[in-house]
């Protein structure tokens, strides 16, 4: 239960950690858009990989500054091999044309199938590393504040942004508590003879139900007590309240914003103008 490393905050006092969460969220979205662009001409496909390599280098630099360990990324990627396998099988089964090579003189493996698999895989890896940088350098609470800030305009159309943010932050606060509880209930049920590991599908479902029902009951009890505690301390969702945590924009944030925007502009230009680096360089040389 304790090996959930995806999206876990890793305390460290790096420059990336200190950046404004609003900026980090915005930059991550910019990077995501960059990854989803297509590059180069219709016939050549190496441009995609060149640009992805370029983005990967930048991500690696950010990871180095943020002191996010590569091993952590690999740990998360480990669970991805299954996805890659399925992707490969699907791509191999897709009807294709173009160059291919033969295995056992019967099975056609198209180059394009391998290319497509690699293409999707690289995009996945890049996106996972981006979200990992964001979540491991930003506390969940800061992220909530950032989301609340972006939602502020929607207050005009009566979206309860503050309540949404409060709900998210309480949910985040109770994840470890509920995980502990799950662990406790599993042990309690196991001591009463419930087997969570073995058995037929039906037996497993039964075992899971014996976990979920008490977990839900206790979660509802908790929520009632929590509501009482919040009310007793004067919480009133509609009323005006001051804030303890205030997001502060610093000069470092401006620099980071300019950097990510210019990178975005560059990549966008490369994509829209269909620039082919190989053609470009050979043109310059010749």
């Amino acid at each position, binding site marked *: 239960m304790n090996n959930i490393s995806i999206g876990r905050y890793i305390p460290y006092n790096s420059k990336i950690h200190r950046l404004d969460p609003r900026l980090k969220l915005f930059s991550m979205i910019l990077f995501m858009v960059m990854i989803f662009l297509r590059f180069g001409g219709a016939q050549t496909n190496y441009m995609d990989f060149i640009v992805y390599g370029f983005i990967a280098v930048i991500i690696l630099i950010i990871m180095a500054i943020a002191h996010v360990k590569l091993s952590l990324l690999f740990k998360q990627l480990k669970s991805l091999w299954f996805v890659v396998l399925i992707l490969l099988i699907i791509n191999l089964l897709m009807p294709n044309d173009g160059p291919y090579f033969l295995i056992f003189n019967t099975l056609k493996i198209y180059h394009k199938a391998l290319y497509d698999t690699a293409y999707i895989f690289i995009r996945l890896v890049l996106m996972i590393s981006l979200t990992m940088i964001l979540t491991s350098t930003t506390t969940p609470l800061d992220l909530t504040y950032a989301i609340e800030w972006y939602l502020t305009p929607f207050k005009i159309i009566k979206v309860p942004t503050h309540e949404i943010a409060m709900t998210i932050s309480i949910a985040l*606060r109770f994840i470890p*508590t509920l995980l*502990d509880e799950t662990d406790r209930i599993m042990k309690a049920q196991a001591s009463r003879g419930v087997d969570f590991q073995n058995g037929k599908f039906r037996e497993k479902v039964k075992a899971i139900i014996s976990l979920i029902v008490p977990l839900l009951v206790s979660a509802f009890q908790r929520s009632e*007590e929590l509501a*009482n*505690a919040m009310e007793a*301390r004067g919480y009133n969702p509609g*009323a005006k309240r001051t804030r303890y945590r205030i997001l502060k924009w610093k000069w470092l944030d401006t620099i980071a914003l300019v950097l990510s925007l210019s990178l975005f502009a560059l990549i966008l230009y490369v994509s829209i103008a269909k620039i082919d680096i190989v053609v470009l360089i050979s043109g310059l040389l010749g």
Partner: protein
Amino acid sequence: MSVLSVKNLTFGYEKDKPVLKNISFQIEQGKYIALIGHNGSGKSTLAKLIAGLLELQSGTIEVFGELLTDKNISVLRQKIGIVFQNPDNQFIGATVRDDIAFGLENNCVPHKEMDAIINEFAEKVNMTDFLDKEPTRLSGGQKQRVAIAGVLAMNPKIIIFDEATAMLDPKGKKEIREYILKMKKEDESLTIISITHDIEEAYNSDEVLVLNNGEIFLKGTPEEVFKDKNKLKEIDLDLPFLMKLKDKLSDCDIDVKDVKNLEELVNKLCQ
């Protein structure tokens, strides 16, 4: 001056099943009140009604001479703090700092003043070193200390402890008890209502209220209440250790009637 006066309070979660039956009492400022009684006797319900967490059905509650109504509930609530039993379910912030700040945010304390207040009250409960820790990294006793700091930071006049030590280990229990006594010493005007199963704690309070089946069974100073041992036995409540010891000694014809605490008893016996 009476800070809290409850008159003819009747309350039930279901119709025709009253949890509290026609309860009336008054509490003077600066007193340490122990509210004892068996599970289901209505202690926690009474606390929730006083704190304005449940809606009154019949009867009235006056806080500092003001009648508790729907309109002034948010104002009067600032005067009453309540520490609940479960340390986990009253920890609202992501860290100790945020949790103490939660009440301040609700009371619209300006941002600039918050840090000073947080540090002050964290120091009072000895949690300064843990300000940036998440609740999962704290023990039950530490979480309860944070809860106390969070309540104290709001500067209440009455603090209710709803079995605040029931889920703690003996060390945590002792700690919390010490903090309660310490803050009582620092602010004489603070009124404390402690809902407890701990007979010793009740014996050391200023006034004891015994609830049974939703009615006030006994009320008075600890000496008065625990003197009536046959009446307490009637509802299966235990006697404090000192009382039991004194009884046994009296049976052996040793005169210890005037003894007030354990120390005096020891001295007397050693003579």
